[in-house]
């Protein structure tokens, strides 16, 4: 369905994505995961033919995005992070307009609009002005316009952005409902969101695919180097004493690589928060050891924050990238300084 080879996109001198290569099969639901600025939106915009690549090849449904953009656009439905909605139109007028723009035959427009209204559950607001709708309904209308022409590929950029928990659940259902009829590419920086809705995950970092696989593969990979967040308390002890006790209790365990004391996650006497880097899943052992050391466990959780995931996925390279860059820069400066000719008396 999608073939991307050596894709690069530059904004001026700045590389937004590249080199990026991947293949996505028909009917797959793919999650594009990455931090802000990683290149997710640019990749999606290239897929939707909103932007053209600087170099490389992108083929959607057999058509090249540069050579046959109109053919690609006819087969793609795109919901950008900000839905492209006209506040002065009613939902039905807007969907009719979107359908006509996207080559839906005039005789079929009414039916298609009714179908997507039903699928996205916006029939009860079909005659309301878009400007008067809630954010959740606007997102639904955004998805409706993306699928009104029955595209083979649906591209959704951060579809749950700004939604409340109930709306998030509804949106997940909606995205899952697209499975089968369409190939779907969803971007998000929230791992749980991607893992709930997608068959396969592509992790994008610095414009490149840093990792690719299923949710279970990702979990297996992460267990090799997971992090545990701990908040413990020792009654009648100071924070420093508690931290020392906890560190001693945890460090001696097999599989514990590093213990880091953080800012306390909650206020109170003798409360300490730690982050423990482990090479295998030793959560139970950590819990037992802390209890044996006389510490009360207020919280013990595996970190699933994206930033932490990235550090795990990308290992030392990412975790210490800043430090390494600084060291490298310092080294270069030292080398440059040592190689630079000493100022001569004349130059002085």
């Amino acid at each position, binding site marked *: 369905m999608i073939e991307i080879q050596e894709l690069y996109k530059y904004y001026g001198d700045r590389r937004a994505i590249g080199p990026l290569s991947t293949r996505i099969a028909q009917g797959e639901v793919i999650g594009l995961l990455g931090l802000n600025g990683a290149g997710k939106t640019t990749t999606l915009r290239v897929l939707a033919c909103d932007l053209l690549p600087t170099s490389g090849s992108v083929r959607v449904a057999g058509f090249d995005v540069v050579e046959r953009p109109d053919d690609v656009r006819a087969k793609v439905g795109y919901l950008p992070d900000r839905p492209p909605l*006209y506040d*002065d139109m009613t939902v039905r007028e807007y969907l009719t307009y979107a359908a006509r*723009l*996207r080559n839906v035959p005039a005789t079929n427009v009414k039916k298609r609009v009714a179908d997507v209204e039903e699928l996205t559950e916006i029939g009860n607001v079909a005659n309301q002005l878009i400007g008067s709708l809630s954010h959740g309904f606007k997102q639904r209308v955004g998805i409706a316009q993306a699928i009104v022409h029955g595209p083979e590929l649906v591209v959704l950029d951060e579809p749950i952005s700004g939604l409340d928990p109930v709306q998030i659940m509804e949106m997940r259902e909606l995205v899952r409902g697209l499975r089968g009829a369409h190939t779907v590419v969803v971007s998000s920086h929230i791992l749980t969101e991607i893992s709930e809705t997608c068959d396969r995950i592509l992790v994008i970092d610095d414009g490149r695919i840093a990792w690719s696989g299923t949710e279970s593969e990702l979990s297996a990979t992460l267990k090799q180097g997971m992090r545990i967040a701990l908040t413990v308390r020792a009654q009648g002890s100071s924070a420093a004493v508690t931290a020392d006790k906890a560190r001693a209790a945890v460090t001696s365990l097999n599989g514990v690589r590093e213990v880091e004391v953080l800012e306390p996650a909650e206020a109170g006497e003798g409360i300490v928060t730690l982050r423990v880097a482990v090479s295998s899943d030793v959560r139970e052992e950590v819990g037992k050891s802390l209890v044996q050391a006389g510490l009360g466990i207020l919280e013990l959780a595996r970190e699933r924050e994206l930033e932490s995931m990235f550090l795990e996925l990308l290992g030392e390279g990412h975790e210490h990238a800043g430090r390494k860059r600084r060291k490298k820069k310092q080294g270069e400066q030292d080398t440059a300084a040592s190689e630079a000719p000493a100022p001569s008396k004349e130059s002085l």
Partner: protein
Amino acid sequence: MRALIIARRELYAYLRSPLGSAIIAAALLVDGILFYFASLDTKRLSAQLLTQFFYDSSAATMVAGLLLSMRLLAEERQSGTITLLNTAPIRDRDIVIGKFISSFGVLTLMNLLTAYMPLMVYIRGKVSVGHILVGYLGLILLGAAVTAIGLFASSLARSQVVAVIIGAAMVASLILLWVVARAVNPPFNTFFSGLALHHENYRPFMVGTLSFDRVAYYLMVTYFFLLSATKVLEARRWR
């Protein structure tokens, strides 16, 4: 065909928003006031009054043309709705033509609503139908050129205010070419006066003289700026 879908949506937006109605009403009011004061001069011949009317209307047409066209692409970019057009199987050329048709249509409607004034001159005075028709042809062509310039300016800016400022600067520069023409020696004076948006090219229409050179000039200006707006849209995809 696709252009007409966009034109229809834009016309709808003009009708729904107070901006379109306000611009038309203001332009008609100014036209009416200027016509009233011009008609107070009893020594003026009816043909002269008609010429004065087309002169005054040209100013209202240019201002209204810029104000109507400023939103065409700038607003779409500002609100993010340009993505809907950019990702639909529709050519940039059709987007520009659709936008142009809507704005030009509203401007032409505005000009036609002034027809009662020349009609009064026709009934009460001695002017030919040809003078009136040629005068309106000039107004419509001038309106098309200014709308195209405004559309081009709108393609460059994200803000409507910036778009109208760019458009006004371009229109003013093209109008003032006749001043440049006066300051330079032949053959450059002919060249510059031939390029002036209003003076040399519009005056024949005011007095009822149909010149195909002048018609061609306005059509070329319109085409040039519509093509430029299309190229701007195309270029943005490569950015």
